[in-house]
């Protein structure tokens, strides 16, 4: 059973009508008559979806990025590799963080090291995955895998999807800040190509901790910023009620982030979002990854690192 967001209500109603029509047709065996109605409804669903999705507000984008039917990191890895994937575990220090996954895979004959935050698909799994909020050991696991990739000259692909790094007591004891900082310092000079794809939520340092890529891409309906609209609302407006305004003010959509040159590109989503046609989404992401790996591999490692340092090293707007 699909889930619908509040602004997707018209799509839901039409889909229910369509289901009912089909059901009716089946039980009464009068297919000839309903085919026209079915076509009409299908067309209507398409135009309605297009209409709704072409006018999404920043806050609605945030909602889409968190849509419970949206594919998560392991689904992307599974699908872009066609199952040619070996998951690797552990940071070799404390434990295996279930909110940060990774491993080696093949896309065609290209080996790739994958890393990404993983959200859970149901209540039980959401808890198991800690809602995609990694602890320091998650970031250290991610770095271990990236170093492994460097050793074996494999490009790194990271999938970013997190409401933030976990703000827990043990996380602080084990150095959440240091873990993220270390990743930034090491990732910026990693010798292999790095492609980062924001597939859902890109919240704050927790997202950036696996986000220093030669190419940083955002799926169309995702967000990336220093804070979630809810927290921003609570801090700056001192109430939770201004999340819509906060979402707009933060300029956190893929279009805004690209316009401000804080990311390198946007990956189009299928009509109605990544969850509406995940197969198409996986194919597009696979093509994008391969395209960028090919381009980046043509550069010498020193050149790539140099460009990466220059890109991130010059971000910011000041008046002098």
């Amino acid at each position, binding site marked *: 059973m699909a889930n619908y967001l509040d602004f997707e209500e018209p799509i839901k109603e039409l889909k229910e009508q369509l289901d009912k029509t089909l059901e009716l047709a089946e039980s009464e065996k009068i297919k000839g008559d309903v085919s026209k109605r079915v076509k009409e409804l299908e067309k209507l669903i398409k135009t309605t979806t297009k209409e709704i999705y072409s006018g999404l507000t920043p806050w609605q984008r945030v909602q889409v990025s968190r849509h419970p039917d949206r594919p998560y990191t392991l689904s992307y890895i599974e699908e872009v590799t066609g199952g040619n994937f070996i998951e690797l575990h552990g940071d070799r220090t404390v434990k295996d963080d279930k909110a940060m996954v990774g491993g080696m895979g093949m896309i065609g004959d290209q080996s790739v090291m994958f890393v990404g935050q993983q959200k859970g698909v149901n209540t039980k799994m959401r808890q198991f995955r800690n809602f995609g909020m990694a602890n320091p050991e998650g970031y250290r696991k991610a770095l271990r895998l990236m170093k492994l990739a460097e050793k074996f000259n494999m490009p790194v692909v990271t999938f970013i999807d997190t409401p933030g*790094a*976990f*703000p*827990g*007591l043990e*996380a*602080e*004891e*084990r*150095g*959440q*800040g*240091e873990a*993220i*900082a*270390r990743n*930034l*310092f090491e990732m*910026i*000079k990693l010798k292999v190509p790095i492609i980062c794809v924001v597939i859902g939520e890109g919240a*704050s*340092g927790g997202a*950036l*901790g696996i*986000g*220093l890529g030669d190419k940083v891409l955002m799926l169309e309906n995702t967000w*990336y*910023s*220093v*804070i979630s609209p809810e927290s*921003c609302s609570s*801090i*700056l*407006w001192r109430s939770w009620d*201004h999340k819509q*305004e*906060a979402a707009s*003010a*933060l*300029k*956190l959509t893929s279009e*805004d*982030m690209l316009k*401000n040159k*804080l990311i390198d590109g946007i990956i189009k989503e299928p009509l109605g979002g990544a969850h509406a046609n995940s197969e198409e989404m996986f194919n597009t992401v696979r093509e994008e990854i391969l395209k960028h790996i090919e381009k980046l591999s043509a550069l010498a490692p020193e050149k790539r690192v140099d460009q*990466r*340092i220059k890109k*991130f*090293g*010059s*971000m*910011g*707007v*000041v*008046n*002098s």
Partner: protein
Amino acid sequence: MGWFKRIKEGITTKSTEKKEIPEGMWYKCPKCSHVLTSQEHALEMWVCPSCDHHERVGSEEYFQILFDDGKYREIAANLTSGDPLEFADTKKYTSRVKASMAKTDLKDALRTASGMMEGEKVVVSCMDFSFIGGSMGSVVGEKIARGIEHAVKNNCPFICISKSGGARMMEAGFSLMQMAKTSARLTQLSEAGLPYISILTDPTTGGVTASFAMLGDLNIAEPKALIGFAGPRVVKETIGKDLPEGFQRSEFVLEHGFLDMIVPRAELKSKVAMALKMMKQG
């Protein structure tokens, strides 16, 4: 005491003028209620002689403490914040910045300066918590970058004193990317084989902790400074319990392995200078 001397003319900025402490002002320690004159307090380096409480001070005070004779030359002093996102919450970001400038007589939440420390050239960046909570926006990132550049050019160590509530929300994505920017620039320092000393003072949290503050060749903290990624209130909400005594304080962070040492303010200069001397002769 050298660090309290007036600044020699022409070599520094006018913001030092306001640090003249009027006679007859009193300081009452918020921890132990010990009372002393503001002048005495300054002579104690703004540390309570009775209970060792390290009062929060700004870049000017730290420059006075670290640089020989309090003499320094500020780098990129005139950079001010842009407003690329045209950000507004209940107030416009530009008005917040203006108000903060007027209140603090500072341009942003960090200043970078070069000068001599025990006879050796150093570059120091120091945050000002009084400017929008010491939050990190583009100016903070850029001034750190300029400091590192200057250190590399002059083949000298870089010291950064952190004191920050974290990211500057009003610069959103730009603020976030300052974590990337500063970390990227630090690789140039490390490439050049130059020392980077990170000094963490009360408070150092959020994106600053998760980038340059934790990346020192040496991480040094002042006593009892709050140092963490998530703020204590957020952690408390997450675990739904009271936090243990001393949680996220320097002593706790040292115990968990993320600091090299805790140094009282009075010994800061000599300890850092000694460490740098050892690194130089290594």
